C-alpha cells in the first residue's frame, strides 16, 4: 500500500502539526504534544468533554474538537491508545472547574489509560466521569452489549454531550445524556479492502479480490461473515436489518443515520447505500432526521462503509440540532 508520508515514526506528529496549522480553531497542547484542544479554551464553569483514541481514524477523534462538541482530545500512535500522560493533560486542559466527562471508545488500552489518568487527577480535585462508546453491534451479542467496541456512532454522543455542556449543564447531566446517546446508537460496518499501519510491511488484514466482510472492526477485527461481494442494496438491507434488530425498547419513530466511509470508499457509493438505507427505514415507518453521509470515522485507506443509527428522543434530537462547529462537522442554528 502506497502512502504519502515521510518517516513512519513521524506520521502522527506531522499529521497533528498539519491538522492544527490548517485549522486555527484547534491547538496542540500538553507536554506530550498529543492533546488537541480548542484554541479558545474551555470557559470557566463549563463541564469539559474529553475524548481520545488511536491515530488513523480522522476526522475521529481530534477533528471533533470545537464549539458544541469536544473540549480536548488525547491522541495515540496509529491504532494505539493515547498515553496516560496525554489523557491526564487532555482532562486538565478541558477542566473548567465543574468536572470532565471522558467519552471514548471501548478498547482495553484506552480504558486503562483514561482510568489511570482519572485516578492521577483525583488528588488535583478534578472530578471525572466515564462513558464508553459501545455501538458496534458486530463485536458482541446483545447480552454482552457493554463489551462492544466503539466505532463511528460515538460522534452522536460527542454532539449531544457537547451541546448540553455548552448550555452550562452539570457533569451528571452531561454524563447522562452521553450515556443515553450511546445506549440508543448502533453501528455496523462492512469492509472491502484493508489499510496498512505506517511502517508496517503488511496490510491490517487480507480479503479476497472479490470478497467482502460484514461486521469488521475499524482496526480489522474479525466480523460476522466473509463472502463474495454483493450488490450495494443487498449489503445495505442486511446492515439496516441488523441494526433494527437491536432497536432499543424505548425507540421512537425518529432516527438519525450516519453513512460513513471507512476511507477509500467514495461518496458516490455512500449515496447509493444511503438511498437504499432510507428506503428500508421509511418502509419500517421510521423518519430520518439530520442524515450524515461522508467521511466521519475512517481507518485511513480502508475500503468499506458503516451505518450508524441513533434512535432519537426529544432531547437528543434537540441537542443534535444545536449549533456546533468543528473542522469536519458544522451545524448552524
Amino acid at each position, binding site marked *: 500500500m502506497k502512502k504519502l508520508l515521510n518517516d513512519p515514526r513521524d506520521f502522527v506528529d506531522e499529521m497533528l502539526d498539519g491538522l492544527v496549522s490548517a485549522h486555527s480553531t484547534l491547538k496542540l497542547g500538553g507536554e506530550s504534544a498529543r492533546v488537541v484542544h480548542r484554541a479558545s479554551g474551555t470557559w470557566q464553569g463549563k463541564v469539559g468533554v474529553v475524548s481520545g483514541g*488511536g491515530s488513523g481514524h480522522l476526522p475521529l477523534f481530534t477533528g471533533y474538537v470545537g464549539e458544541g462538541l469536544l473540549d480536548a482530545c488525547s491522541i*495515540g500512535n496509529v491504532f494505539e491508545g493515547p498515553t*496516560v500522560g496525554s489523557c491526564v493533560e487532555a482532562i486538565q486542559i478541558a477542566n473548567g472547574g465543574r468536572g470532565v466527562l471522558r467519552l471514548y471508545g471501548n478498547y*482495553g488500552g484506552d480504558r486503562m489509560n483514561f482510568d489511570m489518568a482519572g485516578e492521577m487527577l483525583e488528588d488535583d480535585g478534578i472530578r471525572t466521569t466515564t462513558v464508553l462508546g459501545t455501538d458496534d453491534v458486530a463485536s458482541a451479542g446483545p447480552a454482552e452489549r457493554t463489551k462492544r467496541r466503539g466505532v463511528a456512532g460515538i460522534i452522536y454522543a460527542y454532539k449531544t454531550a457537547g451541546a448540553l455542556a455548552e448550555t452550562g449543564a452539570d457533569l451528571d447531566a452531561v454524563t447522562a445524556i452521553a450515556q443515553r446517546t450511546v445506549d440508543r446508537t448502533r453501528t455496523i460496518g462492512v469492509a472491502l479492502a484493508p489499510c496498512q499501519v505506517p511502517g*508496517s510491511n503488511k496490510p491490517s488484514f487480507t480479503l479476497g479480490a472479490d470478497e467482502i466482510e460484514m461486521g469488521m472492526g475499524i*482496526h*480489522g477485527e474479525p466480523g460476522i461473515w466473509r463472502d463474495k461481494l454483493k450488490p450495494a442494496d443487498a449489503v445495505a438491507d442486511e446492515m439496516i436489518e441488523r441494526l433494527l434488530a437491536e432497536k432499543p425498547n424505548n425507540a421512537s419513530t425518529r432516527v438519525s443515520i450516519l453513512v460513513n466511509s471507512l476511507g477509500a470508499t467514495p461518496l458516490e457509493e455512500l449515496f447509493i447505500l444511503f438511498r437504499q438505507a432510507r428506503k428500508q427505514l421509511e418502509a419500517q415507518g421510521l423518519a430520518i432526521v439530520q442524515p450524515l453521509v461522508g467521511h466521519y470515522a475512517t481507518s485511513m485507506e480502508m475500503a468499506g462503509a458503516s451505518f450508524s443509527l441513533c434512535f432519537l428522543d426529544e432531547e437528543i434530537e434537540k441537542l443534535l440540532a444545536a449549533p456546533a462547529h468543528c473542522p469536519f462537522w458544522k451545524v448552524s442554528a
Partner: protein
Amino acid sequence: MSITPSAIASVVERLHMAMDGIEQRLNEADAKLGDGDTGGMLARVLAKMAETDLSGAVDPGTALTALAKAATIATGSSLGTLLATGLMAAGRTIKGRESVRVGELSEMVAVARDAMIARGGASLGDKTVLDSLDAVADALKGATTSAQAAHAVAQGAATALEAFRSRPNRIGRARMFGDGTVGLDDPGMLAVKELAAKLAG
C-alpha cells in the same frame, strides 16, 4: 543478594538490546491475533526505559517508578500500560527501602500481577501476560541469587507459554478470534518468554 538501581538499569539495558532479535517475531505473533504491533511497541518502550537515567534514583522503588513513567510516555497500548502499572505497583511496595533482596522478587511480581489484573480487567486463565507473570512469581519462590532468579523467570515464562498454547484467548483483540486462537502463542506471553530467555542465556 540485593537489587540496586544500577542492577535494574543493567537488566533494562539487556532487555533493550534483546529486542533486536525478537521484535519481528512478536509483531508476527500479534498479527495473527491482534494488530501486529507488540514487538514494535515493546522495542519503543524498552528504548525509552533504557534512555531513562537511573543514576540519580535513590532506591530501587524510585527506579521502578521512573521506568513506569517512561513506559507511559512511550506508548498507550494495552501491554505497555499494563507494564507500567505493574512496575508502579511493585515499586510502591518497596518505596523508601534502600535495598531489596532477590528473595522478595516473587512477591513483587505477584503484586505487579494483581495490579495488572485490577487495571486491565482480565483474569488468570485468559491467556495473557498475566498468566506468564503468575507462573514467573511461582517459579521465583525460593530463588535467592540473581542467577537463580534469571533461571526461574525463564523457566516460568516458558512453562506458561507451553501450557497456554492449546487454550483460547479470552481478552483484548484476540478474544474475537475465539477458538481460532487455540494453538497460537499469545504475543504478550511470547514476549515475556523470549525476553526472559535472553536474560538467562
